[in-house]
């Protein structure tokens, strides 16, 4: 293809956007709306996932040390405990500290007569992956000097179940939304090109090749897709920021942490532009396919 022909076809793509400005506006708006809905669901599920992750991290495992061990001997086990696979961190708690913590929860009358020897030295352990809690518990129990490991397997299982449900639901929702969005977006583009079937017919009759006809539609789809994706990204950024600041301003904000937009901005922008361009180009080319069969 010659340079002048190529530049003509590119100019045609832009001219077409301007000429069919209303349908171009409709296509960009629909791409934007669908991407914002898809993005919002994804961000929501990411935040729920993080929330569950935070809750999981608060689910501790306590490893009790043999009561005959002195504080120093018990503390010396730290490296052995930390070396157990799946142990994220282990904090040594002296029996005196353990008793203080326990006693703080009860009335003075109840505390009388309790000696610190009732308590054992211990390690408060956080895990990398709570789904491996059972295996980690066994491994900790096999460390010499550790006599008992208290792990709430039932809580861990509950978290795992919730996380799995959330993952499946958000995946299903996202997949459905992607299909619905692509369907809506490509139909809007189809509608936008319907009015141009006569123009395509004329092109065919004067001897235009299919690639000659397609290229301006590809350029048009590309521009509309980038525009729709870019604007959707900016809108999502604004909406997310607004919503985040509102939530953080309430009581709930002190209990939960929200993923900052900066953390997801790059992959989100790539996804938005990618989907926008794919839908714009594929939708446009697909929409004119039938008109090219003349």
């Amino acid at each position: 293809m010659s340079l002048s022909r190529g530049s003509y076809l590119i100019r045609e793509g832009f001219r077409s956007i301007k000429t069919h400005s209303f349908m171009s506006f409709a296509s960009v708006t629909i791409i934007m709306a669908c991407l914002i809905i898809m993005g919002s669901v994804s961000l929501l599920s990411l935040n729920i996932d993080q929330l569950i992750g935070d809750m999981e991290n608060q689910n501790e495992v306590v490893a009790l040390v043999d009561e005959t061990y002195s504080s120093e001997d018990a503390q010396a086990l730290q490296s052995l405990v930390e070396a157990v696979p799946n142990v994220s961190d282990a904090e040594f708690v002296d029996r005196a500290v353990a008793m203080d913590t326990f006693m703080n929860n009860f009335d003075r009358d109840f505390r009388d007569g309790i000696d610190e020897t009732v308590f054992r030295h211990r390690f408060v352990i956080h895990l990398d992956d709570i789904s491996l809690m059972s295996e980690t518990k066994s491994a900790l129990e096999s460390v010499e000097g550790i006599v008992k490991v208290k792990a709430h397997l039932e809580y861990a299982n509950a978290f795992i179940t919730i996380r799995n449900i959330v993952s499946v639901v958000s995946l299903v929702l996202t997949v459905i939304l992607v299909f619905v969005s692509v369907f809506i977006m490509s139909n809007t583009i189809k509608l936008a090109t319907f009015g141009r079937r006569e123009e395509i017919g004329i092109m065919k009759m004067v001897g235009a090749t299919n690639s000659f006809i397609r290229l301006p539609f590809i350029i048009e789809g590309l521009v509309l897709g980038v525009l729709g994706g870019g604007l959707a990204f900016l809108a999502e950024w604004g909406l997310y920021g607004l919503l985040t600041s509102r939530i953080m301003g309430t009581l709930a904000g002190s209990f939960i942490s929200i993923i900052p937009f900066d953390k997801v901005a790059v992959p989100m922008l790539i996804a938005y532009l990618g989907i926008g361009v794919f839908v714009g180009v594929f939708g446009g080319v697909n929409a004119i396919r039938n008109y090219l069969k003349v």
Partner: protein
Amino acid sequence: MVRMKNVTKVYDSSGTVALDGVNMTIDEGEFVFLVGPSGSGKTTLMKLITGEVRADAGKVIVNDFDMNKIRRHKLPKVRRTLGVIFQDYRLIDNMNVYDNVAFAMRVVGASGREISRRVPYVLELVGLEGREKRLPGELSGGEQQRVAIARALVNSPRMIVADEPTGNLDPVRSLELMLLFEKINEMGTTILVVTHEKELVNALSKRVITIDEGHVISDGMDGYFGL
């Protein structure tokens, strides 16, 4: 040049036999009217020439291309040897006169210099000089049809195929248009005009092929049979 030998076309959807064993030859440089009542097969015959439909049986040769064997992606090559004109003009509404004509040259990859040399010449030939910047909606029916003729002519086709080109025009404009076709024919381009306007056909004394119920029923210089 068009050659048709025992051409049959049946539309699958309705089972209608549009053409039944048609034999016909149009030589280079001829001016031919194709006449016949509605539903006689005129449009199907035209579509066979432009490659919009394929024959179910027989042979169709258009400007040396075998239309039964040609692959779909090669059709633009055939169409570039033809200039097609329709009753409803089929101009692109948002392009001005100049661009509507230049567009046909861009499609075939003509350079900007060639376009700027050829388009004004063709517009002058069809009597549209000074109308270059007008949009189709700002022109009369006759002028719009002239734009369509200019577009058909601009790539110097070997043959012009016009389907009811005067269908939307008054008798005076229709005759003017036919005289324009005659002028183009004198310059060497083969002309095939599909029409059912008896007066026009008889006024020009050209070869007339009459078709009815999918059969060629007459072919000669005797004018319109008035079916």
